[in-house]
């Protein structure tokens, strides 16, 4: 395997990690940007997506199960997100610390529920035959393989990003969401139903987290605590990207994924993680608001 093949492989790996991170962080960035809600149960929405993918594959064997898994994870996690908004978050409007505690409680409840329903042992989903295996290059790039599944996940992340961006730029609801984000009182005075907007955006973010969970289920086991391990990385992406910024989150996911892959090329995964956290601290010293902070009247 040549050096070039190795480094190209690492670049691809960085992109692949970035794709998953983006899916995991996007919803968090949206809910924080729009509502100033720190949703500690976000990881559990991701976990739910993973379990739904597993359930879909159990119920519908074969490749159709895979096709069903993604929409089911999106809709299921989105529905739970809407319910969470309606029952908990809406009632704690403007009380960030209370929301923090309440969503943390919800996260513990959901973890225990998953443990009761699926057991403490991880479950997993099997990728369809078309996505198993890899594209093997030859010649000067001998040894470089591009896994179809990872390519698929990168594509899905890019599509999701484009979809969310279009939602905010092109749809009426998206424009209303931006109006609410920029100045909630003014938007309401103009007749925008802020609560409906919030609920929709929250459910959308939850649905994207569900998609992330479904993707993960094809790469790694889904356990009751899988959300815990990903929500920390998702927060990292949100903080680095600048809260509430879709493009910022995408840039941050690329930066985090790329840096992690670059660091792992020369050192171990554990040291790479340390370097990543150190780099984040350094970045926040220079740009405390993250890469692309959202400017709003409410702040």
């Amino acid at each position: 395997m040549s050096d070039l093949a190795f480094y190209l492989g690492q670049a691809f790996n960085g992109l692949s990690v970035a794709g998953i991170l983006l899916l995991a962080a996007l919803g968090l960035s949206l809910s924080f940007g729009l509502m100033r809600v720190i949703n500690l149960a976000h990881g559990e929405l991701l976990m739910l997506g993973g379990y739904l993918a597993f359930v879909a594959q159990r119920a519908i064997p074969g490749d159709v199960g895979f096709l069903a898994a993604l929409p089911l994870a999106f809709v299921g996690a989105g529905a739970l997100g809407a319910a969470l908004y309606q029952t908990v978050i809406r009632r704690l409007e403007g009380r960030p610390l209370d929301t923090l505690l309440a969503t943390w409680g919800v996260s513990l409840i959901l973890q225990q529920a998953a443990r009761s329903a699926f057991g403490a042992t991880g479950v997993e989903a099997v990728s369809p035959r078309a996505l198993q295996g890899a594209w093997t290059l030859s010649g000067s790039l001998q040894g470089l393989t591009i896994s179809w599944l990872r390519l698929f996940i990168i594509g899905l992340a890019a599509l999701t990003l484009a979809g969310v961006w279009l939602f905010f730029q092109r749809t009426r609801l998206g424009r209303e969401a931006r109006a609410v984000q920029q100045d909630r009182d003014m938007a309401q005075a103009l007749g925008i139903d802020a609560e409906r907007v919030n609920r929709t955006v929250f459910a959308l973010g939850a649905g994207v987290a569900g998609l992330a969970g479904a993707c993960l289920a094809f790469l790694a086991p889904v356990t009751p605590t899988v959300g815990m391990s990903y929500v920390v990385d998702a927060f990292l992406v949100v903080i680095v990207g600048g809260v509430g910024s879709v493009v910022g989150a995408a840039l941050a996911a690329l930066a985090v994924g790329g840096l992690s892959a670059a660091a792992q090329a020369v050192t171990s995964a554990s040291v790479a993680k340390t370097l990543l956290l150190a780099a984040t601290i350094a970045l926040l010293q220079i740009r405390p608001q993250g890469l692309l902070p959202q400017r709003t009247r409410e702040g």
Partner: protein
Amino acid sequence: MNRSSFSARRALAAAVFVLLAGCSGGGSASESTASDSIPVGVLHSLTGTMAISEIPVRDATLLAIQEINAAGGVLGKPLEPIVEDGASEPATFAQKAQKLIQQDHAAAVFGGWTSASRKAMLPVFEANKALLWYPVQFEGNECSPNIFYLGAQPNQQILPALDWSFEQKLTKIYLLGSDYVFPRTANLILKKHIEDRGGVVAGEDYVPLGGTDFSSVINKIKAAGPQIIFNTLNGDSNVAFFKQLQAEGLTAEALPVISFSIAEQEAKAMGPSLVAGHYAAWNYFQSLPGAPNEKFVAAYRAAYGADQVVDDPMEAGYVAVYLWRQAVEKAGSTDPEAVRKAAWGLTMDAPEGPVGIADNQSLSKAVRVGKLLPDGQFEVIWGTDAPVAPEPYDPLAFPGKSCGWGGGA
């Protein structure tokens, strides 16, 4: 920038703090201990990343306790198992061990899996002069008078596996492990022996415990081009590693992996098709012949279901209770110091074959290499003829250190 944005950022910081601090806790089990029964502690991770491996060990330990109770108990008294959850957190293990010893007055504690959990419990057992019966293979380089080590020492698992690997002419080796004390020390020992025998260490890599992204690791493995991977990953990470290895098109024929923490249970949970054709080194395999093993497998299945499988640490957890009973009956008391001395030199016809407790409180036991079949069972393809005496301190990696209390054997 105004106040609300400032407080929002502080709240975000608080969120991260809460997450990093993690949530530990969990309920504790029964309280009362009747004076006509002997309380014993069973301490394993029933939740978290290690639950996949540890729950079956708890079940095997409880099976031995039930069998002993059905046969009349120990010193004429029934055993009362008190089960606690270590939650895959070393600190929780230490705290629960303390609770079992001080509050429940457990005569002995059977438990632990990761070396991190054992290292966390060690000072608790030494300070309370209590006994821990630890059922898992480990890295050696430790010898406490308050612990009985029922799993393999390095010279009873990883080094025989190296013998096998060199016999197969697989001498260019990649070392991959979870980032904690067992893989680090095991690989330290392996590196010395690989170099000593003229082999090549193609690379060495560690992933945080529970880590699930192996893309970079696999890329590095491909670049290094080893003939075999020595895998000391633990817990759920193994599923992610083998899945991603398979997704890259690396088959067991092209690049075999020999694992030291994947046994029948893990293979079953992972789906055997994922790991079929790869290897594992253990002292016990479910497929071993012999009456004690047939009896053990049948009893386990009768208790927990006909589709259940058993593995090496479960067998050690099962054997531990029987050896402890032998020692208590020999000593005529459950006093830890008396039990400890009585235990030296005891032997047993265990499911894995004859074992004996050496005076360094580890077992002499035979070593095997198995190849995983698509049905989730191992075909034993290599083994030592006789039990191997335990060596807590590898002479090459830790010269001049030894351990033993000169009793028994």
